[in-house]
């Protein structure tokens, strides 16, 4: 790990200072991996007090994205309450994601760091290759956009063997937190769109007579295991300070 840190710090480049936060899409361009094969990953640290700490965190983020790609288990529960007189009373969701981090050290040890950048907003951005994986083509290559919104915000890409989902998050104080929230939302969107297992229980109480009313309570739980989860594009909407992520997974039964 120390050797990897040394290698990573040697020959790194800097974009702006660590202080002075500014929010634009420039930090996102550092995360663009569209010109790399699918066995190359990017990790972002967010700002820390030392460069060593930032690189360490970014390498861990790289390794984490490899593990997330391997298997990401998700579940969520929803409770909806409606009343004919008062309308929607609540729409509450509890969403969780799990991944196996037992092999995190082994993944970190085998990573080959390709580049390290420092950025005011992103902290350290590490691009690293996993030599144990074949350099396959990426599921989706973002088309260049001239300041406009990406096409995937309107309709999801259609690629054989893959499924896509989008997620969004309001900007948090730290860039990496915003990205993580947006990526998590994209994973949950994939679960919403392609539900493997769901339990749904709806209860509608209707009262007709001198006083008519209707109450509707709905409980839903769903879960799924995503394989090949990968963030393939990102977008930052300045107008409403929202981060967007486009995620892809391997379609079950597909050979890629």
């Amino acid at each position, binding site marked *: 790990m120390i050797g990897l840190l040394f290698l990573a710090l040697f020959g790194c480049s800097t974009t702006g200072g660590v202080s002075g936060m500014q929010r634009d899409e420039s930090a996102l361009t550092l995360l663009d991996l569209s010109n790399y094969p699918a066995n190359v990953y990017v990790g972002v640290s967010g700002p820390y007090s030392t460069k060593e700490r930032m690189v360490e965190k970014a390498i861990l983020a790289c390794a984490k994205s490899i593990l997330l790609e391997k*298997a990401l288990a998700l579940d969520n529960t929803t409770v909806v309450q409606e009343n004919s007189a008062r309308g929607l009373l609540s729409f509450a969701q509890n969403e969780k994601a*799990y991944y196996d981090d037992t092999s995190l050290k082994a993944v970190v040890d085998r990573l080959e760091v390709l580049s390290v950048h420092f950025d005011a907003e992103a902290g350290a951005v590490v691009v690293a290759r996993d030599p144990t994986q074949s350099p396959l083509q990426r599921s989706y290559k973002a088309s260049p956009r001239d300041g406009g919104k990406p096409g995937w915000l309107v309709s999801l890409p259609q690629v054989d063997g893959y499924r896509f989902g989008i997620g*969004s998050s309001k900007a948090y104080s730290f860039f990496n937190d915003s990205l993580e929230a947006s990526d998590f939302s994209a994973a949950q969107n994939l679960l919403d769109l392609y539900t493997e*297992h769901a*339990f749904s229980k709806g209860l509608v109480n209707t009262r007709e*007579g001198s006083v008519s009313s209707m109450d509707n309570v*709905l409980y*839903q739980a769903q879960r799924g*295991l995503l394989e090949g989860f990968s963030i393939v594009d990102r977008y930052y909407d300045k107008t409403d300070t929202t981060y967007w992520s486009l995620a892809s997974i391997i379609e079950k039964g597909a050979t890629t």
Partner: protein
Amino acid sequence: MKKILIALVALCMVFALAGCASTKKDAAPPKPAQKVILGADGIPQPDWVYKTVSSQDMHYEAGYGKMSDKQISIKRATVEAKNKIAAWVSTSVKEVVVTYVNDAGSGDDRQAMDAMETISQQVAEATLSGVSTSEMWIDADGGVWVLCSIPLANIEKSFEPAAEAVAEAFVESDAAAAANAKMKEAFANLLKSADR
């Protein structure tokens, strides 16, 4: 002169025939103009928003959601569509009729008030597997419509215990097994809390 006469007769016949054809065309009842409803980004409203979609191997249900942002609207719409699928798979209705009588007052002022109410309780409960969102359309107001589908073959499967279905569906790798175990544990807890 004879040739001119023949040409004139031929010309008249051509006009007459053309006239007949156009008369017939005009006589056809005018088609009502189809109203096209455009959604966000100018995408026309698809048929499945207002028509039932059916096929021999899939069951479809549409859901609608309009919440504070697009992502939550998608969630609301998919929750509604899945609830409709659950209702289609399994629904039970209990109904009771209740009457209230209140005889009050005295002498000529006696007043009988009675009321009748029907109280019905509808429960839709099902475990579903393999529900996917086939289509999505966003209306001009930002409301999200989704069309969800479930293979009919999965309806029978959905009555199997969930844990067995999970075990069958997942190809076990070390990472998958560990992640799956954590998930199943959490899901079992959720179901327990749902039963309470």
